[in-house]
């Protein structure tokens, strides 16, 4: 080569490169050692700060926890656990401005491990905080089908339960029911799980599935008084909402036996009893009893209509052809016209008459409820029977 090297190094390019390579390797080793020691020192400091942050977070002192986690991350910036904890603290702090930052930490973690169940669950919770149904479903599903290092089934179940809870809050009942059915399929033989699923089904107004889950919970919770009482009460209410008043009565009686202070079960039990006493369509009653119930219901409906009209200053005598067929005056007119026909019921001459009378009674109870609010006692029982029959017709 025509150009010269230093006096201190041989005048040869390969030799120079060799020396530079050795020098670079030595410097590399030295810096590696330095970085390793520095990192070890930093990680030790970060662990102390992280422990403090965890204690603060567990005590719901989120502002302190955030500071501690931030400081831990200053010392050990790439620690996923610290990032996750900071993101959780930011999310749980209740400050909506923190959600962006929490999400960005989690998004960075997600990019590193897109199938990590913990990260996806945390992202799902952020999405739920934001109220974003699509994102929440996506991340919760990722969490449900993602990788969990331990106790995977429990975490997956928890993720699905949270998702269902969120969907119910957002009134997305259809999606919630789909998730619930999936949840119910894989529930373990534990009363608590079935009880929770039953409650969510009930929240989604899917009473048949709720009742099934309550029944499973009752079966699995024998000996657990508290769990049993809740399950009985829930089963009773689920049966009641389906119009299965005898079943409801049976479960509610057990619920009251298990927990006599359960006022809701008492109320529902009384209501079921009332319904069973006034409903002319229940099985295993004689024709005479049915006719008696219809006559009694007819009288009740007339009284309810009159009381309601008086309270709202509606004149029941002002019915003309122009008034709506469901208005109280129109119904009163029909009620008066039908009164003489009641005597014919015992003669069996007109087999459609009981249904016609009951239809009028139901219309009166429903219209009165619209005009004057929910009734009590026998009127409420009749109203519920009418709604049950409507639902059955649909």
């Amino acid at each position, binding site marked *: *080569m*025509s*150009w*010269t*090297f*230093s*006096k*201190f*190094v041989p005048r*040869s*390019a*390969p*030799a*120079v*490169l060799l020396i*530079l390579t050795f*020098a*670079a390797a030595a*410097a*590399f080793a030295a*810096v*590696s050692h*330095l*970085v390793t020691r*520095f990192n070890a020192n*930093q990680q030790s*400091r970060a662990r102390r*700060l992280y422990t403090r942050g965890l204690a603060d977070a567990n005590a719901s002192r989120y502002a302190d926890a955030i*500071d501690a986690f*931030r*400081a*831990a991350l*200053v*010392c050990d*910036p*790439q620690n996923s656990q610290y990032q996750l904890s900071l993101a959780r603290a930011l999310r749980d702090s209740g400050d909506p*401005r*923190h959600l*962006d*930052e929490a*999400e*960005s*930490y989690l*998004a*960075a973690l997600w990019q590193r491990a897109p199938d990590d169940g913990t990260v996806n669950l945390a992202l799902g919770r952020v999405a739920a905080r934001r109220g974003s149904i699509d994102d929440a479903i996506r991340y919760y599903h990722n969490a449900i089908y993602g990788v969990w290092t331990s106790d995977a089934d429990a975490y997956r179940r928890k993720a699905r339960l949270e998702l269902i809870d969120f969907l119910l809050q957002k009134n997305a009942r259809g999606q919630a029911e789909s998730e619930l059915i999936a949840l119910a399929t894989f529930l373990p033989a534990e009363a608590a799980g079935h009880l929770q699923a039953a409650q969510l089904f009930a929240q989604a107004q899917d009473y048949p599935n709720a009742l099934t889950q309550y029944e499973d919970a009752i079966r699995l919770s024998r000996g657990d008084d508290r769990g049993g009482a809740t399950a009985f009460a829930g089963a009773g209410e689920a049966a009641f909402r389906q119009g299965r008043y005898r079943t409801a009565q049976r479960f509610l009686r057990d619920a009251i036996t298990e927990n006599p202070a359960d006022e809701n079960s008492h109320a529902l039990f009384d209501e079921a009893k009332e319904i069973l006493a006034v409903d002319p369509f229940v099985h295993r009653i004689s024709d005479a009893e049915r006719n008696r119930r219809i006559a009694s219901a007819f009288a009740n409906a007339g009284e309810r209509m009159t009381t309601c009209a008086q309270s709202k200053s509606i004149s029941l005598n002002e019915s003309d052809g122009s008034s709506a067929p469901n208005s109280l005056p129109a119904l009163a007119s029909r009620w008066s016209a039908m009164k003489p026909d009641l005597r014919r019921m015992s003669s069996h001459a007109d087999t459609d008459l009981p249904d016609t009378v009951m239809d009028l009674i139901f219309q009166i109870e429903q219209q009165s409820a619209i005009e004057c609010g929910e009734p009590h006692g026998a009127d409420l029982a009749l109203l519920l029977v009418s709604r049950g029959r409507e639902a059955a017709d649909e």
Partner: protein
Amino acid sequence: MNDPVTAETTARTTAKEGVSAPSAADQASAAWHRFSGPQRLFAAIEGVFDEEGFFLILSVFIGIFAGLAVVCFRLAIDWTHLALLGPLPQNHSWRLFLIPAVAGLVVSVLVIHIFPAIRGSGVNQTKAALYIFNGYIPFRTAIGKFICCALAIGAGHSLGPEDPSLQIGASLASAMGRQLQLPREKLRLMAPVGAAAGLAAAFNAPISAVLFVIEEVIGRWSAGILGSVVLSAVASVVIVRGFLGSEPLFRIPVTTFKRPAELIAYAILGIVGGVAAIVFAKAIGFLRPRLKALPRWTQYFQSAIAGLLIGLIGYLGAPQVMGAGYDFMDQAMHGQFTWQLLGALAALKILATTLSFVSGTPGGMFAPTLFVGAMLGGAVGGVEHIFFPHLVGSTGTYVLVGMGVLFAGFLRAPMTSVFMVLEVSGNYEIIVPVIVANTFAYVVSRALQRTSIFDLLTRQDGLVLPSLEEEREETVLHVEDAMLPAPAIILSGSDYVDAAAARIRNSPQSVFPVRLQPTGWSSISRDLLERLNQEGKGEHTLGALLSAQSLPSLYPDLPLDAALRFVNNVAFVPVVNRADSRKLEGIISSESVFQRYQAKHPQ
């Protein structure tokens, strides 16, 4: 045709090939037979590398060493910060108040007595090494910069680690070049190569580093050094990522740009950023010479007083302005601060950085510039959001764009500013807002102050260095600017002398261009043509007589400087069409060239 430019290039290429390629092969072959064993390998390698190849490999080593140095530098800053201020400084802590002042005092003593050459950011010093000191930067500068900047930044002075990293890289490269006794032209290039490596490592952004070194250190586009600069920058980034991880400087939030109407909002940000950049630059430009002019003994305390004032800002509730502030930029990007606080932090950071910088505390301007831009971007975005809630993007987008805005307006590196934002964010969706905002910032800043901050600081130090920004403004003259119209009579190489003499008889021209066959140009004077005719050579063609006297020709778009080499000693040089070299566009003479230059630069 005897095209001078083409001819020169060809000659150069031929010469180069003649010297390098065959001789390298010959050397390898000779060495192979001369040596045995490991020596053969050496000889073979030696034969492979020519000077340029060796320089490229050396650039990789520069990148490696600069990367390692920057890793240590960053550890030193982190360690100092943790040791002196703790991991997360809290307001109203006595440490905030006292540590920067004490550190300032220590740094002042070190700068005055041991490392006098390390004041400032390091960008100008590296540029001066390239243009004035033949690439010489004392190794002591690297050591001093490392120690003093780590102490100052770690203690909370409002400065950044990027520019010092640039100078550390340049200084290492310069020392390496001196040890290898590289030729002067190569030694000169070592500084920018090392600078790119240092900056790329500090910023974890190789493209921005390369562009910045070209824009601000080299000061002109030079293809010759580009390969080495890129190699060193990439090598250093690989090293830094290997040791410190490939995490970006910031966790980039979701940034969006959907409606073109939003560009108005970004343009406003650009204008505000341009004005803020000028305030920043004017404050430094005004205070720095005045503080330097104070008695020498005051220099012991200038950095300490600056530290005290910065500590006071931190103590009173804005510790965010202390140090480089990357963590807080990250928080701003994620909407952690209100727009009022963001605005206040931008103003306080300008104040704190001005204090740190003008007091002579060594440290960089990159990080503070990004900080001010980020906070200002967030604040402007916040205000715009109040007035145009449906028009404005996310805070993160504004913070990111704001960074580029200050970079363009304050450092006046428009290309670097755009690529820096793209490289840091990894998001090309915001390229349009970034370009719009940066352009406005640059134009506003340039309109309000012609000289960039780096040029201003250089001139305050009594140096004059080339500036790419000024070069960009300068009008480049071309051959066509000095070109005279083509003469009325153009002779042909196939013309007979007697016919040509008859043709020119009534012409006022004294010299005539001759179009040779098949290509090329020559000229002939009236006197020569008439003499040849009288000597009885009327039967000869002009081409036969003038074939050995062909003229170089030029193209209209060539720089006028290129014409200077050819117009001497000839009456004119033909200017020909690039598509058809036989078509004469005009002529150029030494008089026309000089007249054109005089018209551009009147005495």
